[in-house]
């Protein structure tokens, strides 16, 4: 386990990939992960986009649909370390971040890194931990560093947290406050596989676990270069305006008590860039934005009580906004 102590040297500027290389690599990862999670290519694509946009992912789904598999497959494909934290009510912040222990031989305190020091962190059932522990994790997610006993330790790059929540079983949980949900770039649901995919899953798993057969198609360095390449994707002024219009519409929507934050705008744009790059383009389109709007925006909105009582959910609200916000805000043009 290696980690740098703060203050670290400024990282060398990675060499960005060409759009073609980017597309090929991204497709490689996608095929790899799809080998494990059948029939969910769109979700996987979005998950990869979130990873390459340096965001964190919140998977909200019932147990057993492959949340952990997804995280593991992702980690295998990019040849980086994956850590798993099972959140329980008695989990302590130091279990996440690490702790300084007195080493009698050295007669000094030695930092024992916690589970957060990995490339891909799978936080299972994050809503079962106490708010204190949740807060510790979320702080690491935002700042990408850990401070223990006055020492700051930088986390690895790429660094991505995939947290899962069970939306059904809410007893004895501490639901994430809205402010903390905002830290996740996107919320995805994997959902049950359709019948054909489930049959294929059975066939494949008869002999061996496909996860074991995965070979990495990229390494951490490659991922860093991809992240850099995605940031270079062109964002036209009309597109930025469209994204801002969309986010602004969530704030004025009468069904919503709290709209999306400027952070949401930023993350939506970054994910858009990745999606465009995965399509082999050096410019982003509103089509990319529309694919991402629901996963990126829906979990940040707080609906009004009336909406909740009426059975409305925030995904529907965002879809509705997508249907009504003009792609080009000039009146008289489309």
């Amino acid at each position, binding site marked *: 386990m290696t980690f740098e102590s703060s203050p670290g040297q400024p990282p060398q500027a990675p060499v960005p990939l060409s759009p073609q290389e980017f597309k090929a690599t991204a497709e490689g990862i996608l095929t790899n992960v799809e080998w494990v999670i059948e029939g969910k290519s769109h979700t996987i694509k979005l998950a990869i986009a979130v990873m390459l946009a340096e965001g964190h992912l919140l998977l909200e789904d019932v147990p057993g649909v492959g949340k952990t598999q997804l995280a593991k497959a992702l980690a295998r494909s990019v040849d980086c370390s994956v850590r798993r934290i099972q959140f329980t009510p008695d989990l302590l912040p130091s279990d996440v971040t690490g702790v300084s222990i007195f080493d009698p031989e050295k007669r000094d305190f030695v930092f024992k890194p916690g589970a957060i020091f990995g490339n891909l962190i799978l936080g299972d059932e994050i809503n079962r931990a106490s708010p204190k522990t949740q807060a510790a994790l979320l702080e690491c997610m935002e700042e990408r560093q850990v401070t223990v006993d006055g020492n700051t330790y930088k986390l690895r790059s790429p660094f991505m947290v995939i947290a899962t929540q069970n939306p059904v079983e809410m007893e004895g949980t501490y639901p994430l406050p809205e402010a903390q949900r905002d830290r996740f770039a996107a919320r995805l649901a994997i959902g049950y596989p359709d019948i054909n995919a489930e049959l294929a899953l059975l066939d494949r798993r008869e002999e061996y676990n496909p996860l074991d057969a995965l070979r990495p198609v990229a390494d951490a360095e490659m991922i860093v270069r991809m992240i850099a390449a995605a940031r270079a994707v*062109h964002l*036209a002024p*009309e*597109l930025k305006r469209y994204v801002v219009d969309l986010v602004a519409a969530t704030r004025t929507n009468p069904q919503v008590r709290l709209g999306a934050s400027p952070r949401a705008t930023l993350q939506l744009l970054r994910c858009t860039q990745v999606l465009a790059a995965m399509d082999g*383009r*050096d*410019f*982003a*389109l*509103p*089509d990319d934005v*529309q694919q991402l709007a629901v996963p990126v925006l829906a979990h940040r909105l707080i609906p009004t009580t009336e909406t909740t009582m009426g059975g409305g959910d925030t995904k529907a609200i965002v879809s509705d906004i*997508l*249907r*009504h*916000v*003009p*792609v*080009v805000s000039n*009146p*008289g*043009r*489309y």
Partner: protein
Amino acid sequence: MSGQRHATMVAAATLALTLTPLIGIFEGVGWTVPVLLTITVIATAGSLIRAAGRGQGLQTVAMCAGLLVVLTAGFGDGTALLFIIPLPATFEHFGVLASEGVAGIVTEAPPVAAEGGILFLTLLGIGLVAVLHDMFVVGLRTPALAGLTLLTMYLVPVSVAPDATAWFWFILPAVSYLWLLADDNLRRVSAFGHRFTGTGQLVSQKFPSPMARTARWSALGFIVLTLVSLTVVPTNTSGFIDRVAEDWEGGGDAGLGDVNPWAQLSGSLNRPEEVDVLRVSTDDPSPPYLRMHVLDELDSDGFGPNDYDDHQSLDLEEAEGETFTADIENLRMEAPVVPVYGTPVDLSIDGNWDRDADTGVIIGDNSDMGDVEEYTLTYTDQEPDAETLANADGMDPSDERWEANTEHPEVAEVSSHVDEALGDADTVHEKVLAVYKYLSIGNGFRYSLETTEAGNDEAIVDFLETKEGYCQQYAAAMAWMLREADVAARVVIGMSQGSRDGDEWVLTSHDYHAWVEVYYDGPGWVMYDPTPSAGVPGAVSTPWATEPAPEGEPTQEPDATADPSEAPSDATPSAEGGPTAGAEQPTDSPSLQGAEDGSEGGSGFNPAWLLLLIVAALPFLPALARGLLRRRRLDPARLTAKTAWDEVLDLALDYGVGLSDSLTPRQAAGVLGQAAPGAREAATVLGSAMARHRYSPSGADPTGLADAVRDLHTELDKNAEPRRRYQAMFWPASLLAKASAKQAEESARLARRSARATDRVRSAVRRPRRSNSRKDRSVTGRP
């Protein structure tokens, strides 16, 4: 469906109500039957097609067909198949009727008999208006636009016969317009369900909405305000208020009934085709002008006819001089006066006729020339010589006729022209000659029928400025200027010499003429014709209207004016090309004038056809505009992905492919691809190009986009329903959308501006308010 039938009925009824002002320009009310029939047929045709669920295009065609059937049935005159199906011959007949109608409109003064060409034109015009009206009110549901059609109907009588159109005729058209708007609005509101008051109570359809009370009161207020201001605001002549005032006084022209000699004159001269009016056989080698009306009442409206209230029995006195006898055959003259030559000595004519002592006009006592087939007249011809006139005095100011014959409005411009004309002229004859000369071709005056037919003060000033006019302006100007110079003068309207036809003289509708009579003490009223003879077929020379030699030897003066008796044989090419044109050719008359006059007076270009052409072209204008727009966008020089995409969006609009604002170009292309499966590829190319153009830093290559747009257009057209196809062609929705978008933008801008203004006013008005600042009210609060 019944709502539409109701709207159709309302449209037809409002149009019928708007026709009421026409009552003034037609004789009787018989014309209302065919007119109402036409409106009914058109409304029924439109309603039936609507009931069958067909579109606006077919409705319009059906209504036009209905109109055609009515016209064919009424005017086909046996040329049609089964009475109602028009054949080519029918249309030829229609053409004849139309030109007859135009001629009738030009020549006849209202009220006219509603028959023949005039009725045909009336029905055609009203029919076309009815089609438009129905389209605006029922088909397009834009009743506000129908105001235009109603206004058109109202403008016809107002412009044709302002005299016959009283102000109160405006009330019914106005009411019908309001009815139209109210009915449509009621229908619109009722479409949403119930009507509510402001406090949320239901209002039945039969009751007026309390919410509209303010609107009703303000509408009433505006109407009252308009009427009040109309009566207060001073206007010049020929205005609305004059008519109001006249009608109010219950007046009208006494004596002459509805005949306006000026209108008759200008109408006859402008008549495209020449018709014979009188046929004269006389022993006079060169008969003078035939006098009909004397106009000596001058006010700011110009010269008006004498009241002829000095009737005397027809006891004609012998007069000095050579007498001639004329047998006059009336071909188609209708007038309350008998046209006579010179000073009549004896008149044998059917009917009761009086002589007006003041003017010498033979006026009918319930008799009309229309009932006279021929009459015989013995008369003396007036031939004063220049010397006598030069020595004669004018009318004595103490004469009782002085006032009536020198009265004139004070118009500064006219006065200055008179000063300029008179120079140092002193005697009456000098003044007359000075003015006569002033109006000559030598001073730049030109004969032209192409002027307003008004004879009022403005028209006279115009004439003196532009130096273009015809006999009406010449005569009125000369008489007015002479009056200004204190010379008794009046205008006479009658007919010129006409043209010789064998032993007889034929006087046509183009021979109507106006000239001047000046009073000399002694010789009496002496005629002068200031109009250039080139403009007057059958002009008669006035030898006395030449400068007498200063020595007083007029007879020896080598004069261009030959002996009148030789004149008729001396045929000079003239306006009408008749054999006996101007007896004297003015020395400086440019031959150009004759040509011009010919084109003015002759049967040349008929403006009605131009109007028809414009009306016929109207339906194609939107298609033309749309085509031009498309061509401009796809022009290779300026083609970009953006212009191509704009065209694609407009095509989608035209063909009713719904593209929401929230669709990205690629998604829109997908929707278009579904609407036109054959052009799916073209749509994708266009959508991607637009996406690149808008979002990529490198832009898009426009090559091939024009072809893609054409492919898409062809495929959309192929897949559209016929109705939609015609609509896209002739009534493209994109044009309308653009217009309304522009309008919406404009109104939004206005609203913003007014909101800002209100804010400013509010903030200016709002005073800083400090709480508890009153001295007498100290804060007590809780203890």
